[in-house]
């Protein structure tokens, strides 16, 4: 899969600071010359291939701007690498709670994931069920809109209802409303101890019931995943005595579903779950489906009746990664119908350029899509920021 270079991009713009970046966007807007925004370039193969004249890299906007461990906050330039942020936090035994996925394995890309890229796609890993999504931990942003105006919203404090929450709007906008230049996050203490409980050989339906039994318990489960045909795993994190006590109680509750093993990590590491490693390096299209957990297994079964499908369930069944043959439209119509049957939606995360050109990555939403188009027209009137990328 080609992911590094922008096809046909003649020019690479690499501003040294926010002011220069703003001037470049303003200039592109004046010329109506579309830009492909690039963080670390590890996820550039996502979404519709966009037809950009130039690539705008935020890589030179790097560095941690402010870190207050006692206030659980960190502020970083958008081009700072996730690795750099995580290392800074690790020195104080803290973490980015949302476990941002590393797409390099799944997408076969290289480069260094940036914090701006993670925010732009609202990257949220297994801890989503407990600590929230990337957007939940974002406290403030600075960005450059499509006219080249610098805008700030939110701040660096944990509670803030001063005006509209554009922070949420920018999280997951894939750069189509503005180029992020700086982001403030809430961080958390790193768990001192973790334990994974797992069962083998459960059917999808049973596995989801087991995960729900864990997630509806008072024992503060921090992740629950199931690989179809593989293990069903539950993670507990916290102070050591607490993890041990909760693991014991949870084991009793899960015993009804089969033999329960316990260790620090299960047969599949949480990193592998986070990065959807079971589908890395394997041919086929990869979909990411949000679903109601109690309806997830039936949705997958319905798909299986039509097409070969492999499934990795995260978030207790609230998120399903699907691997399916690329032929035709990569099963788009079927996958979307199955997702809707589970009251959810499907996003195409990996596919050939041909499929991606034919199939919108995002699930269409009547009503909401018109509002979204209105917002893009206001924030980026010249249509220069990743145009068409989020078209459904």
């Amino acid at each position, binding site marked *: 899969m080609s992911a590094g270079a922008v096809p046909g991009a003649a020019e690479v713009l690499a501003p040294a600071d926010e002011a220069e970046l703003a001037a470049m966007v303003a200039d592109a807007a004046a010329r109506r010359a579309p830009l492909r925004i690039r963080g670390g370039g590890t996820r550039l193969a996502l979404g519709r291939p966009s037809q950009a004249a130039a690539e705008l890299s935020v890589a030179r906007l790097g560095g941690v701007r402010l870190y207050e461990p*006692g*206030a659980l906050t960190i502020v970083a330039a958008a081009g700072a690498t996730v690795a750099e942020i995580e290392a800074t936090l690790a020195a104080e*035994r803290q973490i980015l709670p949302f476990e941002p996925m590393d797409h390099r394995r799944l997408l076969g890309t290289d480069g260094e994931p940036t914090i701006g890229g993670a925010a732009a796609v609202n990257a*949220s890993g297994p801890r*989503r*069920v407990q600590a*929230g999504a990337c957007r*939940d931990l974002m406290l403030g942003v600075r960005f450059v809109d499509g006219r080249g*105006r610098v*805008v*700030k*919203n939110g*701040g*660096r*404090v*944990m*509670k*803030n*209802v*001063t*005006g*509209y*929450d*554009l*922070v*949420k*709007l920018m*999280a*997951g*906008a894939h750069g189509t409303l503005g180029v992020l230049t700086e982001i403030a996050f809430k961080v*958390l*203490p790193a768990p001192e101890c973790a334990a994974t409980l797992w069962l083998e050989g459960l059917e999808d339906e049973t596995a989801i019931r087991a995960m729900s039994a864990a*997630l*509806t318990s*008072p024992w503060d489960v921090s992740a629950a995943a199931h690989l179809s045909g593989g293990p069903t795993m539950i993670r507990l994190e*916290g*102070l050591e*005595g*607490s993890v041990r*006590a909760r693991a014991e109680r949870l084991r009793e509750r899960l015993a009804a579903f089969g033999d329960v093993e316990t260790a620090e990590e299960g047969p599949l590491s949480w990193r592998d779950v986070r990065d959807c490693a079971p589908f890395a390096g394997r041919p086929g299209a990869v979909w990411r489906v*949000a*679903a*109601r*957990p*109690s309806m997830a297994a039936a949705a997958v079964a319905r798909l299986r009746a039509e097409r070969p499908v492999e499934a990795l369930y995260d978030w207790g069944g*609230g998120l399903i990664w699907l691997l399916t043959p690329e032929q035709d439209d990569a099963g788009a119509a079927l996958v979307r119908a199955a997702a809707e049957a589970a*009251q*959810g939606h499907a996003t195409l995360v990996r596919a050939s350029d041909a499929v991606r050109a034919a199939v919108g990555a995002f*699930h269409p*939403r009547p*009503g*909401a*899509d018109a*509002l*979204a188009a209105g*917002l893009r027209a*206001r*924030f980026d009137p010249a249509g220069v920021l990743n145009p068409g990328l*989020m078209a*459904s």
Partner: protein
Amino acid sequence: MQMPEPDAKVLARRERILVRLAEALPEDALISDPAETRAYDCDALTAYACAPMAVTLPRSTEEVSAVMRICHEEGVSVIPRGSGTGLAGGALPTADSVVLGVSRMNRVLEVCPEDRFIRVEAGRTNLSVTGAVEDLGFFYAPDPSSQLACAIAGNIAMNSGGAHCLKYGVTTNNLLGVKMVLADGEVVELGGPTLEQPGLDLLGVVCGSEGQLGVVTEATLRILPRPEGARPILLAFDSPVTAGACVADIIRAGVLPVAIEFMDRRIIHLTENFVGAGYPLDAEALLIVEVEGSEPEIDEQLARIKAVAARHDPLEMRESSGPEQSAAIWKGRKAAFGATGQVADYLCMDGVIPTSALPDVLRRMAELSAQYGLDVANVFHAGDGNLHPLIMFDANAPGQLEKAERLGAEILTLCVEAGGCLTGEHGVGVEKRDLMTRQYAPDDLDAQMLVKDVFDPDWILNPAKVFPLEASAARRVRKGAAA
């Protein structure tokens, strides 16, 4: 505080507008008699009140949509309203407006413990959402002190917080979806019973938009399994600075309490006189730190907290030994606002600061208080830096309210300068509308107003709120208004 002149053209069409509304609604859903609309003249910011043209109390999304369609066609401003407990004047009407209250829409529509959500009509009160799931062992996490009365609709519009948000987050972190009526009457659904949504996060910007983007009629909310137990510890210090340093150290120590509450000397004594909670009266600052879990987990966390606190030479560490003692520890904190109200009128500020700035901000606030000659009592959520300075004054003494408001503005400016913000949970409304320029540059405000332009191109929903009147003036000119 200034409000725009009522639109004479709208007032002139009052009769016709009322007739149209009456045709569209059941008889008891429209109130226009000024004696009966009085209850809707203000919210909990009672210093400002104004009679609306009419009040509508629909029972369904369809009825809400009908009201919106008519008001849109007639160019009438609509003031969405939940329970009217807002502290920022967000539900304050204007003479040319129609209040749209959702309090009669309070049914539970769907409860799904397996998928950990509940769907309710938006007029349902916050506490009764928890009430609907507690038998199943669940609760709805955001718990504003007004939770007995306030509606989910108001919580969503204000992105309300609560005592336990250090661990569970505020409304936006617990909201999965809404059904909403747009300004022209169109009904849209944003989000739903899943943890992630495709496309732009419209739900995220609707939450906290203070009734300016649409009228929320239904909400899908995340519910959580109730923890096995909770226990507080009371820590007393001889200086607020030490208490502030202790807060930062607790957070750094790797335990995440569900709440860390701070009370200063003034509040300790006020509440002691009011409810006699038995707080140490020689303390300059008290912290209440609460942790959750099973008994052994609570013990483990409290042991860690005590070890940290001991390094700050506390005057006293009082760990609860049971439900009665827990209630006693919380008693004064819960009575703080009432106790203050007993001895004076007060304005409750809602600024937020980075917790590292706590000592400095408290010191400068004391200086301002002395300078203005008005007492300021401090009780707040220390874990997240959300201050609630209570500015005490005498409403009957001429000029004191204005003086208290000026002091309030200075305190909020101080919060912004310290790296914080004007409001952490009460919202901007009319109260802090004209202070917005202290936190945001013109381009920052314009970007926010662009969002309203998309959702409500004619600016009929709660138009004179949130943004300084000057900044929104050009947009508030009714483009689409009927003749």
